[in-house]
């Protein structure tokens, strides 16, 4: 057991415990807060994978924006979901069985894969990787098209979401 293994186990435990609370807490606001803890723990995992940039993106985008969007949406739909009433569908045991079965199947498949236990190779410099990422995003023979399409996708999502959220009276009042 090296220190980074212990750290990983602690973080993994936090991630899974928080994830478990997200799907089981009856109070939906608390579920959102557990989701934030889960996302934060995942950001720590990215740091451990030497992807500091993605850890920061995770915090900025998920915790800074998506979690707040969730909380706003919960507040907007608050009246419908008082904490009474069942939090699960009637056939939730089926879902649990399916989840466990999928997990078992995934682990079984993965364990038959030859490079399952690979150890990480040495990393030279992750600033250079970020520079390469920046170049690849805008270079025409790499990811230029996906990059612009992602932008257009987000525009479409935003306009659509504003339209849908505002209902029939969408547009200027």
């Amino acid at each position, binding site marked *: 057991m090296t*220190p980074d293994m212990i750290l990983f186990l602690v973080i993994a435990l936090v991630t899974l415990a928080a994830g478990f609370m997200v799907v089981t807490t009856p109070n939906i*606001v608390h579920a959102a*807060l557990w989701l*934030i803890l889960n996302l934060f723990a995942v950001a720590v995992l990215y740091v451990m994978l030497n992807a*500091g*940039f993605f850890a*920061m*993106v995770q*915090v*900025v985008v998920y*915790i*800074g*924006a998506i*979690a*707040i969007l969730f*909380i*706003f949406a919960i*507040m907007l739909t608050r009246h419908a979901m008082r904490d009474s009433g069942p939090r699960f569908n009637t056939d939730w045991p089926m879902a649990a069985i399916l989840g466990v079965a999928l997990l078992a199947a995934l682990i079984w498949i993965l364990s038959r894969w030859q490079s399952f236990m690979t150890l990480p190779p040495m990393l030279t410099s*992750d*600033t250079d990787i*970020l520079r390469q990422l920046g170049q690849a995003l805008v270079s025409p023979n790499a990811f230029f098209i996906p990059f612009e399409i992602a932008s257009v996708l987000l525009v479409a999502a935003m306009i659509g979401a504003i339209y849908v959220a505002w209902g029939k009276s969408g547009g200027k009042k």
Partner: protein
Amino acid sequence: MALLSDPVIFIANWIENLLLGWGLAPLLVTIIMDLLGAGIISVAMLLLVVILIVLERKLIGRLQGRFGPNRVGPYGLLQTIPDMIKIFTKEYITPQGADIFIYNLAPIMATSAVLLLWAVIPYAPRVVGSDINVGVLYLVAVGALGTLAILLAGFSSNNKYALLGAFRTVAQMISYEVPMVLALLVPVILARSMGVNEIVNAQYVWYVILAPLATLILFITAMAEVGRAPFDLLEAESEIVAGFHIEYSGLKFGFFYVAEFLHAFTISGVIVAMFFGGWRGPGAETYPILGFIYFMIKTFLIYFGTIWVRGSLPRVRIDQLLGFGWKILVPVALTLVIFTAVAEKMMFLMAATVIVRILVHLVINLLLVLVLIVIFRAQEARRPLRKPVAEPRTVALGRHSVPPESPSA
């Protein structure tokens, strides 16, 4: 001599060698050194707040033609200490139905989110808490944690005003975060690096000269992020009582207060590191202690600027605030980033000299400001005026004419 010119590195090396000499593992030594560094930074910043609060109260007093605190100690300089003792011994009143854990977590988180910013800001040459290569994004991410703390405080208090205040604050902070990140993108483009330390190292010319408009945008948005006047809607007493911290008492309220003061100072430090050359100044390279002094002087000057603005401007309305953020700052910042990027690439390809670089950037900034003023004027002229309460009436001329009688009903 090394002790005098570069005390931090000298002492750090001395302790490190001492610990290694005791035969501790290198990892353990690193952890101990980090603990020491983090502890020193946190304690120093929390003590600095004592000075900041007195300074701010005195300055605001002067700006408003008052004395400010002047009872305790010489010129009232020790005023904060009895205040601290008082707030320390106040009873905590936890509102009924509060979400206890979150309610107690929020003030801690608010203070932490401010202190965390100091982890990546370089204080002097080679003296920086953590030289991560995504420092600018780190600053943004920590700001997001601060937003979250306010949201938590608001909805765990079980009070409508707290929730309303928190929601307004979050709407304000997220609206101003967009132009802020865009303004931070400008020094990243100029320095070709996201590390705060590298950005400071690259500033042979202070970026305030290359990008004055970005500096201004960052200054304005920083004040909105901190929630100071003219953007202090989060504690508009006349509108939403006190905002998100209405149900907090004792030291829990105290830490929100501390966080606000420290945040204003911290964000000044960020502006200095990004645009005013950080620790740069004559002789700072050879004598790092000078660099630290330069950094502090610059930071206090910017901080004075924020206090000045706070003392001079009235509070804006929430619709004005959000409109200003989205309809003026964001388009301007976007245009600025576009022009800066194109100009910077052109000059990089032509290997332009420093003078040319400065001139081109200045001209771009100036043009944008001019266009902005023209648009602003045009909008101002088109803004419909409210109808007067009563139609203009003909009244008898003369100084003491009787006003027309209003219908009594």
